[in-house]
């Protein structure tokens, strides 16, 4: 039903978003870079120039050529193919870690804001405790117990994301609760859970989206760091961090091995950060103007 007022008005909102996005170069650059990396990861599922697992000692440490666009590593593996395959690991780890943070942190933050008092105090102190374990430190602990691996990297980064999202959600929700439109909803007999779903979440979604892109990019960096020190994805899985760790031993004779994975990380993180900045600018002014 095209005359539905909700859809019609939503359409109007979307047009405003598109108009603003068109004028925001940071958003465009970020979106293009992020989509390119995502596309590369998707493509690697069905096709890479060479088989990532194929070792060929005779082809090792080759400079860039028509056959190997970025050359080969010390086992003769094609670097382009490894970068492509490694993107899957980075994205999967960071994305799931963000999912853990959003899935657990946002409900906790909203709950704390709605209940205040003791619940709030306990949750915030608990988040202080988690913040005292930077992602890497918790990764160290988790690996010490369960051994290294991609799943443990996800858990380590994800745990750290929980208080981040809980605090963002709580802070934004606390600012909304005394607003008159929430009071009006309460006077209409709506309970805290219903108000959170109908009014609070839609109004903090923008902030969460921006924070999500930031945590996503931090997750990519953290995953790279963990696999670099051997706490992340284990062989035979490919990861950008491990590629760098292997390149380090070859840095004197084959510095090009270190360039490609580093640039892949930078492009991904840069794209996400630009996207986050752009989203903040595109989504935020509307809220500001209304105050």
């Amino acid at each position, binding site marked *: 039903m095209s005359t539905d007022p909700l859809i019609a008005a939503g359409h109007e909102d979307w047009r405003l978003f598109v108009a603003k996005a068109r004028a925001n170069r940071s958003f465009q650059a970020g979106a293009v870079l992020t989509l390119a990396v995502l596309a590369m990861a998707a493509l690697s599922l069905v096709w890479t120039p060479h088989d990532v697992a194929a070792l060929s000692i005779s082809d090792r440490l080759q400079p860039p050529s028509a056959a190997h666009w970025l050359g080969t590593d010390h086992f003769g593996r094609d670097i382009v193919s490894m970068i492509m395959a490694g993107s899957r690991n980075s994205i999967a780890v960071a994305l799931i870690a963000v999912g853990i943070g959003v899935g657990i942190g946002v409900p906790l933050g909203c709950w704390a804001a709605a209940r205040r008092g003791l619940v709030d105090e306990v949750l915030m102190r608990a988040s202080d405790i988690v913040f005292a374990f*930077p992602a890497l430190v918790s990764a160290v602990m988790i690996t010490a117990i369960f051994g290294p691996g991609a799943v443990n990297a996800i858990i380590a980064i994800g745990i750290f994301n929980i208080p981040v999202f809980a605090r963002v959600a709580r802070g934004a929700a606390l600012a909304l609760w005394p607003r008159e439109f929430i009071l009006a909803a309460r006077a209409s007999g709506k309970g805290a859970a219903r108000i959170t779903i109908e009014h609070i979440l839609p109004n903090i979604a923008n902030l969460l989206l921006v924070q999500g892109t930031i945590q996503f990019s931090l997750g990519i960096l953290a995953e790279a760091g963990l696999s670099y020190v051997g706490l992340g994805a284990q062989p035979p899985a490919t990861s950008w961090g491990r590629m760098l760790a292997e390149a380090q031993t070859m840095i004197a004779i084959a510095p090009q091995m270190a360039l490609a994975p580093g640039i892949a*990380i930078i492009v991904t993180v840069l794209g996400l950060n630009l996207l986050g900045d752009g989203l903040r600018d595109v989504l935020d002014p509307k809220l500001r103007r209304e105050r």
Partner: protein
Amino acid sequence: MLAYTARRLLIVLVTLLCASAVVFFVLEIVPGDPARLMLGLNASDAAVQALREQMGLNEPVLIRYFAWLGGMARGDFGTSLTYSVPVIELIGERVMVSVPLALIALVMSTAIAIPLGIFTAARRGRPADTAAMAGAQLGIAIPNFWFALLLVWVFAITLQWLPAGGFPGWSDGLWPGLSALLLPAVALALPQAAILTRITRSALIETLAEDYVRTARAKGLPARVVLWRHALRNALIPVLTILGLQFAFLLAGTIIIENVFYLPGLGRLVFQAIGQRDLIVVEGVVVLLVATVVFVNFLVDLAYGWADPRLRRR
């Protein structure tokens, strides 16, 4: 101010207690018997039992937790399973590398970021600002260990100005030690400086839009003077928060950077310990790192009280 400090201190103690409990009980659930691990697989059950008794492993878990806490309070972190020396000695040596590294990096990143943040905020929208912000955007995206590799390649391998790794210790004077820490510190500091620059700039720009800045301008103070006298101190409040968080990141970052430069710091220690399943060492290092983070955040809280008179009464 006293009440504020006391309240903060109480929170620090509770946080530390909880965090140490998390560390202790998480490592408690690890499969494997430390006594058997120490004695090797061929040891007899009786010998293992005897060692367990000696190590106090047969006590109830809460008793052991408080014994462990009490030990740490006296500086006794236990004995390493693989080296058979007190953990505190192992940590003591390594701290002399990791802490100077983190501090140098913190000073470097602050010294770059705050002036640059002020400079770009004062010139927002001009070419210098745009260029600096593009640089900062890039800086945030660079993984520090990759940057470290690049530095090694350029300054140690190609130019041969500085050592590529290793640490001569502090016994030969300040310079040999310092020169070994210079590249790692730069690698740690630059990405953090990029973040801090952006925070400083945006906090200042936000503050410059406040009403009291307009009041100060209406007094006849030029924009430049208003920025220094009125906006800066208010803008420092969010910057302080980030500085506190950054110290935690820097400390954790040293763990990775030490690997690039083969520095004998806490990071190397903890990885060796993980490899050898020397959990007592891991436990000690993690508790120490956590305590440092909590303590630095306590200092940041005190600095808040100094920067913002509204907080002093709470």
